[in-house]
């Protein structure tokens, strides 16, 4: 195995642990936005798709790459948009909302 694969495995394992620790702290209140946000972040696959669509190495690859750009870009836009819309709704205000607890 090449040293690059080893370092990629390190990245995977460490990011997995980091993700576990960070996400464990997300309040159950925000589990829906959590899911839509990680979904949007996951759509970083768009960078891989962009390269394949732009390299023009074969017709098949260009078509598949372009479709992948469409799919992941719609997740980028839709994911961030809905996460922000949801989070904007979480408010403490209200007539007696902030009084107790």
């Amino acid at each position, binding site marked *: 195995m090449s040293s690059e694969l080893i370092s990629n495995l390190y990245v995977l394992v460490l990011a997995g642990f980091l993700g576990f620790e960070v996400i464990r702290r997300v309040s159950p209140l925000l589990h829906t936005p959590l899911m839509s946000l990680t979904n949007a972040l996951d759509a970083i696959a768009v960078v891989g798709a962009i390269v394949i669509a732009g390299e023009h190495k074969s017709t098949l690859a260009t078509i598949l790459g*372009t479709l992948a750009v469409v799919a992941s870009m719609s997740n980028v836009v839709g994911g961030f948009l809905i996460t922000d819309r949801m989070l904007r709704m979480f408010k403490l205000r209200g007539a007696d909302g902030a009084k107790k607890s």
Partner: protein
Amino acid sequence: MSATASNTIIELSYVAAAVLFVLALKWLSAPSTARRGVWAGELGMLIAIVATLLYHGIVSYEWIAIGLVLGTIIGVPLGMVQMTAVPQRTALSHAFGAFASALVGTAEFYLRAPNITPFVMSALAIEVILGSLTFTASLMAAGKLQEVLPQRPITYKGQNFVNLSILGLAIIIAVYLIVNPGATALFPLIVAIPLLFGVSMIVPIGGADMPTVISLLNSYAGISAAAMGFVLRSKLLIVAGALDGSSGFILSVIMSRAMNRSFTNVLFGAFGQVQVSAARTEEAGTVRTASPEEAAAIIEAANYVMIVPGYGMAVAQAQHKVRELYDALTKRGIDVKFAIHPVAGRMPGHMNVLLAEADVPYDKLLDMENANPEFAQVDVALVIGANDVTNPAARHDKSSPIYGMPILEVDKARTVMVIKRGMSPGFAGIENELYYLEKTLMLFGDAKSFVGSLVREISGGGGH
């Protein structure tokens, strides 16, 4: 700009994006910083995309531009759906993400075959298998949530065996491809068979299992993206995939605990859950009912009211009426809080979003651990569209299919009121003994109009 210089810029931008992604999730931990988290994520994404466009290997931009524009055109309406439709939208976005993974994996395979090392081929197989099965499974889940497909589970004898055989076949072919990556004719099979498996995996799953299923598909999509990172040698993708995978994993664990199911049971696609529907008990006791006027009079006399919302509230679109009830009661000095079970609704956190949409302050929304100690002091527990998660049988009846499932202990409140359309049992087909308690009043009717009448009684004229 030379190729090496642009590569350095790209790599450094990816590091920045990875840092911003982690910060995004860190800031999401509390509502006060959560929006900052979204901005961090957006900035990271922007940096990564712009940097990628600098890549010297790109020979033309027309298809990229078409893809980005089309994706944006599809993405905007998907970001603007109604809050009640968020579960199906989420399932759909898992489908899109998985679709992208499967496409990229397929393109990479045909570009590189037969010169693929066993390690890369393994990653490619994971990417394509998980991507394909998550794609159809998520579409099925979205269809069930949107009620385009029947919500009830469809089962047949030997279903688990058939499903696992289908998946096993795909894995055997994948192993063969890892050893012989030149066998390009077999590759379509590790796309097609998982596509079929995705469908057959969701067929036996009912609506109430959706929170678990969506979390699971979330984690599959993440693992698939991480595998893609190995194929494309992109550490940024590995990081994003690992973050998504762990969030899906954590949510799946929380959901399966909240339904008292083992994690392996969930990992293998929630099979076997459906058999409980046979366990219906026919011991019909007597129930007490109340009209809106009677119910309103009792609620007005309370000091502390706990509202327990469930999927029924979402179906009836009653969240805005519930907020009006909250307002009317707080105006009279009554303490009102909401108790939210982890699996209430169709995805994790669904109820919180709906109530936040209706402008209920989020510090009034209690999760199960915080709500349960409160019930002893609660005068009226008002259950709106929740069923199995309030059934006391889960605590003591060893023969009940939901025995051991953590519940909201509404029966500890002084008075319990349940708004319900009729006496039909919940999804699991289990009679809810809560309804037959002496302290329970059944309020029959549509959640939205019943809460509406309660509001009218309470705010109009001070009760009779």
